[in-house]
């Protein structure tokens, strides 16, 4: 278990050479190995989605994948959404619609929403709600999260 392997994680366009055990989860290595603590762990059972990141564009649970499986692949996290001082439109919409309270689930929701909208900019309202039901939030009651993402979806369609 303790044999280490050298891998490279491409995180938000930056290559991180890290040494991992095969059992190290992707989320642990993103947080501790790469120092990107914006991705959170909420259950480590693959249920809550707080650890959602985009792996080669697909939203995945970073707690359910071993880091070694992501060797050489492109990973995007919340830290990669904004361009300098310019927030990603999802980030701005979350603020505008009060779609975050404690902010713990927020990075996972942002990455989930980004993945959904990038995969299908014309995604239907129902499909969007269905897709967003993959992640859990205890603070907001989801209403404002849906509003925020729908507002961005409407912008994309316009």
């Amino acid at each position, binding site marked *: 278990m303790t044999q280490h392997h050298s891998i490279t994680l491409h995180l938000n366009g930056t290559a991180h050479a890290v040494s991992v055990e095969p059992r190290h989860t992707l989320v642990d290595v993103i947080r501790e190995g790469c120092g990107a603590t914006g991705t959170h762990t909420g259950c480590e059972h693959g249920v809550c989605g707080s650890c959602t990141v985009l792996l080669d564009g697909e939203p995945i649970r970073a707690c359910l994948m071993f880091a070694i499986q992501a060797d050489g692949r492109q990973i995007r996290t919340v830290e990669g959404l*904004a361009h300098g001082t310019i927030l990603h439109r999802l980030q701005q919409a979350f603020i505008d619609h009060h779609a975050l309270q*404690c902010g713990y689930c*927020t990075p996972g929701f942002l990455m989930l929403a980004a993945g959904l909208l990038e995969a299908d900019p014309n995604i239907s309202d129902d499909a969007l709600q269905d897709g967003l039901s993959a992640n859990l939030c*205890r603070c907001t*009651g989801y209403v404002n999260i849906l509003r925020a993402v729908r507002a961005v979806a409407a912008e994309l369609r316009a």
Partner: protein
Amino acid sequence: MTKTGFPDARVLGQDVPRLEDAKLIRGQGRFVDDIAPPGLLHAAFLRSPHAHAAITAIDTSQALALPGVHAVHTLDDLAPHLADTRLVVAMPSPSYRLDLHRPVLARHEVVHVGEPIACVIADSRYIAEDAAALIEVEYDILPVVTDCEAALQDGAPTAHRNAASNLVAEMTIAYGAVEDAFATAAHRVHEKLWIHRGGSHSMECRGLVAIPDPVEDRLTVWSSTQMPHAARRLLCDIIGLHERQLRVVTPDLGGGFGPKLIFYPEDVVITLAARLLARPVKWIEDRREHFISTTQERDQAWDVEMATDAEGRIQAVRGVLIHDHGAWTARGVNVPQGAVSAMPLAYVVPAFRMQIRAAATNKVPVTPVRGAGQPQGVFAMERLLDAAARAIGIDRAEIRRRNLVPADRMPYETPIRTRGGLPVTLDSGDYPACQAMTLQGADWAGFEARRATARAAGRYRGIGLANYVEATGRGPFEHVSIRIEPSGRIFVATGAAAMGQGTATMLAQIVAEQLGADMSNVVVTTGDTEAAPTGLGGSNSRQAVMAGSSAHAAATRLRDRVLDIAGELMEVAPADLEIVGRAVQLKGVPQMRRTLAEIARAVAGQAGFVLPGQSGPGLAAAEELVIDAMTYANGTAVAEVEIDIETGEIAVAHLVFGHDCGRAMHPRLVEGQLMGGIAHGLGNALFEFMAYDDTAQPLTTTLAEYLLMTATEMPRVTILHMESPSPLNALGIKGVGEAGVIPIGAAVASAIDDALSDFAIKIDRLPISPVDLLARLDQAVGG
């Protein structure tokens, strides 16, 4: 613009941007697990796999031998360093019959699955968990107590082997001539109810990082606690430190919802381990641990009766509540006491007697979760009112209208006392008007047409309602200090602890309102024992009321001081000055101004030189405004449901929530609090269930088994507002953090009864699952 109770205000009552969002939205929040000082070690706990067992031996030798392990602590290892091996935290009450103080670590007996027995400190969490699995513990299994009602029957096994019984506490809350009222009442109704509530399930579990500073012989503990000052006091007491040797800070909190106000064994073990090893130590609870070691609410069995006159006016309420207390007293008897106290509050109830019996069980200790017993008390009362309406043959809304405390009787002093012995006095509100507003918003009067339309399509639609009154703003005080420094920036520090609701924004609004209205000029520090000398932290929907009131008083005083000094410097009357942005200016002559920075510098002092004017040094004010009486918020929920009688599926079609929390300082945050509470209430009504088998083994230890609401379950929700300013504080505010959750279960149950009235099904338990409902339907049709 949103309707506001602060019509002349510049920032109060406005939906200003939250100060918290800029960092959180970029993933730059600092949650406890994000703190990783150099040399950090990681902890894992070995927890009991049994609900009740004697420990006959603990062997840690193999764990200690594992490379990367720095220490393995059992109670025997830690006891020489502890002033007490127990956590004595129970709030005072004459009701206790058993002293059930948790041990720092279990040594001779374990009394619930998940109870911590040993702690491994290692180079990584992975190694710590490997080592924990190598600890050998020998157990003798003991009989278990799984059910709170069975626990109190004669001959029941005891949850603690040496306890005389399982009766942890008993008390009776009573007033008026109850028996006389029942003897002469026109109508009497009786309900036997079973109400379950589950865990808090903040998305962030608990955790702490303890960082020793050998240079100064002190420790900083970053903890996901709602009560850092209480944690510091308890840690100092038990480890033998004084207040300067220990700083407790709450970093960004990923939700609280109650259980994070509790002081836990892990808090002691991790802090002491860091001190003993002279290394930083981190422990982050995982979700499985959250299910089996973080406190929860759970089961209550209510046997209650109501007597009314011929018109449905309540004459008396009486009954017994049996409350599942769990294995230890981690807080007190406040959950059942709060439940019973909440029961009659919205209504004129001339006579009342409720006996509370709290039972020890071999399960996780029970302490408040958002709502803190009040949803259960409201459920019991509202079920009785529905039963009485049926018995008398009047509309469910009408019986409530006849009994709600009328506006012209405010303030309305009840004979009930708070846990601190203070009278419960409803301070303000118009409950009948709130109900009327909500009924109108839900089109209660037009419901039968919707029912008929649904029935024509084969669906069973029903509507139901519930009222609540919530005790908010528990005193006696909260600390707030404000300083304007020579930079011109305004620094606010408070004993209040933010849990994600926007506490910093709320306090900054109050302070900015008086000191220039520039939100970006205010820096708020919450939840840090170094920043505030004292504080009571987050609980009881108290922080807006208590910290808000202190902030308002301090800011008002500091504003006057700023204007006095500016008046001296500018040689004008203070009454002719105003603070605009970051400067004081002459009204109507904005070029005549002094910046806050200049004023702060003028009174910062210079050794040997006389201060200007008569005002003395510094620009600071601190307040710990004492407000003992609680302020009572109220509201009405109307739920409309549709039921598929083939599958038992219960779909909430529309939920209307009308409420009154006094003046709303930030309407959008108020709605956010309510919406989250409503979701939590719907979860409690329909989904959330912390299941145990008959050996008290938990069966729901992942979020795949314990169902939280998701985006697809959230119904259409309409929130309606009334504003009855509280006379108890200058801002006229009432708490709102827990309100949303309180009436939902009762309203949904009422709606299900109504939908299934053809089958005469009466909901007498929460949560209500499709499986339960199908069983009731089968029973009803004789299937």
